[in-house]
């Protein structure tokens, strides 16, 4: 059953006539809107060939677009891997039986989810150079040096005479990891909790220990259920990497909206449009991948992670073409039985009717 047919019947003669009139009306509205925009652009000479032709030159692509794209992908990839590790550790820590592990992990995750990513990036960029000399003079001076020299050097962090300098790349990755890692921690927690309780009960009953139950039984099932939500979060991460623009990290947005206009006669509008197209294509590709994963899971009769209400701000900067893994997509039947997805509502925000359309088959 298609989504549309839920809300209206097949049109009769009067409804058909009304639809034709409304279609004509909206075409007229779009034409007028388009014409107004055309006139505006024309008035400001935004159709001048010199503003658009830079994107036909190979040099622009090899000199600005591709290096920017590589930097964007680099920060996304590094932050993505680290955020996954962070999310895995803290997500499992929140499920710990020991309150002294569970509570601090919960506090950390909630803290980083409650504050804006940008102030985390500012923290990483501006604070270390000022406070590191103070730490260097104190009892933790050596520890600070070791941390920078052995742990943080791959990110380009350097320590010089007790002063720690954090490059824009490292600051961006720091913020992306802590924020998205915290969101992923919730995804992991929800994923593990979404595995039916009989699974862990059965595992315990055959004599497995806590560690083995988690490692051999719960996680493997949880991970495949979480995959769509994880990929959706990667779309968020990719988009958030554009915050590098603000701290002058030379990623795609910076190269295209700051550098190209500076070199090619202030074509901000044109560059921004081309840049948007690149981001949209990248994210749609990632979104497609998530949809494919969701479908595959549905075929295998598994549900996507049913993420609790408070967690929905994964929607936040929000997932490309697919759902944010809230509620099962193609598996509305299962989710309906659990009774969560329906109430929480956000069962599969996907666009292709995987999650949205098939209510008829659910329940």
């Amino acid at each position, binding site marked *: 059953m298609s989504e*549309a047919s*839920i*809300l*209206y*019947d097949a*049109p009769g003669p009067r409804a058909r006539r009304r*639809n034709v009139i*409304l*279609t004509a009306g*909206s075409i007229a509205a*779009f034409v007028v809107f388009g014409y107004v925009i055309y006139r*505006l652009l024309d008035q*400001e000479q935004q159709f001048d060939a010199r503003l658009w032709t830079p994107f036909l030159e190979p040099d622009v692509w090899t000199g600005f677009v591709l290096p920017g794209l590589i930097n964007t992908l680099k920060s996304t990839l590094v932050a993505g891997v680290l955020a996954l590790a962070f999310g895995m550790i803290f997500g499992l820590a929140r499920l710990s039986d020991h309150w002294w592990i569970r509570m601090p992990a919960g506090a950390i995750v909630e*803290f980083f989810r*409650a*504050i*804006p*990513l*940008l*102030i985390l990036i*500012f923290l990483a960029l*501006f*604070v270390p*150079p*000022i406070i590191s000399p*103070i730490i260097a003079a104190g009892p933790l001076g050596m520890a600070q040096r070791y941390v920078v020299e052995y742990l943080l050097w791959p990110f380009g962090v350097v320590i010089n005479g007790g002063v720690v300098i954090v490059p824009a790349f490292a600051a961006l990755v720091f913020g992306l990891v802590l924020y998205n890692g915290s969101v992923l921690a919730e995804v992991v927690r929800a994923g593990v909790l979404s595995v039916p309780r009989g699974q862990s009960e059965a595992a315990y009953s055959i004599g497995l220990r806590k560690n083995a139950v988690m490692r051999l039984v719960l996680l493997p099932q949880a991970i495949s259920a979480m995959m769509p939500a994880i990929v959706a979060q990667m779309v968020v991460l990719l*988009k*958030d*990497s*554009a*915050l590098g*623009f603000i701290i002058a990290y030379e990623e795609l*947005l910076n190269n295209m*909206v700051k550098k190209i206009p500076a070199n090619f006669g*202030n074509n*901000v*509008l044109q560059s*921004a449009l081309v840049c*948007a197209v690149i*981001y*949209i294509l990248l994210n*749609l590709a990632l*979104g497609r991948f998530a949809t494919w994963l969701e479908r595959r899971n549905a075929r295998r009769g598994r549900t996507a992670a049913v993420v609790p*209400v*408070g967690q*929905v701000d994964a*929607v*936040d*900067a*929000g*997932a*490309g073409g697919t759902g944010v893994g809230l509620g099962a997509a193609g598996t509305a039947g299962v989710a309906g039985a659990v009774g969560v997805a*329906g*109430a929480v*509502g*956000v*069962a*599969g*925000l996907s666009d292709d009717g995987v999650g*949205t359309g098939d209510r008829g088959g659910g329940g």
Partner: protein
Amino acid sequence: MGEIFDFSPIFESFDRVWAGFQSTIQLSVASAILSLVLGTILVAMRVAPIPLLRAAGTIYVNAVRNTPLTLVLLFSSLAISDTLHIVVSDVPRTNYYWFGVFGLSAYTACFVCEVLRSGINTVPLGQAEAARSIGLTFAQSLRIIILPQAFRTVIAPLGSVFIAMIKNTTVVIVASYAEAAAIMKDLFEDYSASLGIFIGFAIGFMVLTLPTGYFFGWLAKRLAVAR
């Protein structure tokens, strides 16, 4: 070591900090209202019986929500306001405030639309059928029957969208409008950067986001549709 946790800048320039958070709140409230209106229009388009409107809504949502917010805000401030010379106010700060609101709303509306659309899917089929059988048109059934129930089921996810939006107001820094995050950066430069300043601002943002979350959670429970 005491200098690292020096909170005095927050108190010394408390009027600036307060002004920054006031800007954040103003941005959030205006964008919340505008994105709610826009999102509702978008979702009406996306479920409408007219294919053209459906396509337009789908294209808009997919294009804007896959674009980084930073780019959306740069587009609204640099491209639309500065390049095309469209201004809503001669005072630059007011002008950039509004273009910040426009950019944020254009972006957030996509998420409002998607949340609402999933809410529409939770309304039982019988509701729409009953509405049609008593002779309501599509617009009437959407307005009187479907959307009120859809809104009530998605209050919690909607709250999360607004929390994300409050955090996203910090990105308006690229649209040349100074809100709390920009003030934090200024304080880092005026005083020496310290963890104290950061923690002060982090608490400020938590004061905004956490109660919003609790409020929407409470509202969702209160208004839940009993089925």
